[in-house]
């Protein structure tokens, strides 16, 4: 029986190593597997997402209401298409709400800020934000500033 216990221990040890490697692969360096149900999806097209990534925050008045789930290029509009999951509790985003890409701090991460509009109708699962504002790209700003300085 002593031998059996030892072999079970070794088996569990090696298994723990494999599980740890899998978790490192999936959770630390790769994809998430969990999918939450109590959310709905909305989309927004942006000219320039400027460093926004999947799993970035979606906020309203600074309060977290959801996260970005997918970013891809829309081949027809030739713009970035951002898919986000908004919590089901927040079902009062009017259809003329605007989404803009903002930066936390001067050099911090990018996130999406939502400002609601005045319409009575609300965004449903699969709807698009009509009014979007792209990320502020610091290099562009500096470029414009320098150009203005020179032309003056």
């Amino acid at each position: 029986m002593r031998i059996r216990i030892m072999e079970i221990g070794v088996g569990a040890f090696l298994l723990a190593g494999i599980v740890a490697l899998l978790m490192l692969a999936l959770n630390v360096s790769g994809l998430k597997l969990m999918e939450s149900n109590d959310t709905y999806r909305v989309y927004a097209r942006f000219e320039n997402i400027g460093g926004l990534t999947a799993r970035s925050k979606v906020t309203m008045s600074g309060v977290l209401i959801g996260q970005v789930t997918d970013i891809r290029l829309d081949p027809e509009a030739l713009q970035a298409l951002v898919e986000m999951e908004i919590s089901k509790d927040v079902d009062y985003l009017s259809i003329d709400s605007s989404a803009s890409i903002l930066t936390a701090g001067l050099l911090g991460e990018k996130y999406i800020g939502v400002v609601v509009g005045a319409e009575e109708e609300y965004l449903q699962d699969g709807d698009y934000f009509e009014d979007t504002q792209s990320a502020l790209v610091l290099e562009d700003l500096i470029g414009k500033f320098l150009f203005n300085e020179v032309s003056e």
Partner: protein
Amino acid sequence: MIELVARLGRTGLRKLEAFGLAGIILMQSLIARPAPTVMFPLVVKQIHFVGVLSLIIIVVSGLFIGMVLGLQGYTILVDYGSEQAVGQMVALSLVRELAPVVTALLFAGRAGSALTAEIGLMKATEQLSSLEMIGVDPLRRIIAPRFWAGFICLPVLATIFSLVGILGGAFVGIDWLGIYEGSFWSNMQNSVDFREDVLNGLIKAVVFGFVVTWIAVFQGYDCVPTSEGISEATTKTVVYASLSVLGLDFILTALMFGDI
């Protein structure tokens, strides 16, 4: 003067001889291993000894190192308003450097010294020569299984160390200091690459496992068979193993990340 040169030459020859013996032990135990049916239970027994029983010290130190990294990273990064980068800092430093190196150091202290003492005592009590007398090669029967066990265990331990450390860092960062969970993990996932970081860390662990076990086994096999000799060999194991781990780590890091 002649005496001095002679002594120097003698020391050099002795070192060379030891190095040769280490190489022979390595070759013999890697190539001339016993049949798998005999080998397997022996290796399992050794994995139990050097791997499973080292698990507690690895998990506890991994947890605390991860938590300290999270805390230190937070206090520095919060000044720049980028505390979301804590996850990436904890994960990268653990996976690339700390997990293989600290695991190897702990392994040298916990398992390497025990291996040396065990084999040294076998030699002192003439168990090794008895084995030879009855026609069993001690290299195959005693050394080879221990060698393989160390080789297998260190990567497994290092992987567990990284995972536990990252979970510890996440615990401190998210649950205690209140970093937003999504940015913590997304920053980490964006910056950690499986092949570049995780696999390179694993390769380091394999190399360290090889070196630490080799040194431990050789020191035990080569020791002076007295109680003093065994204690000296055990000390040498820990010192040499730690030094070669740290030195090799620099070389490996330069090869992997140094763009040479």
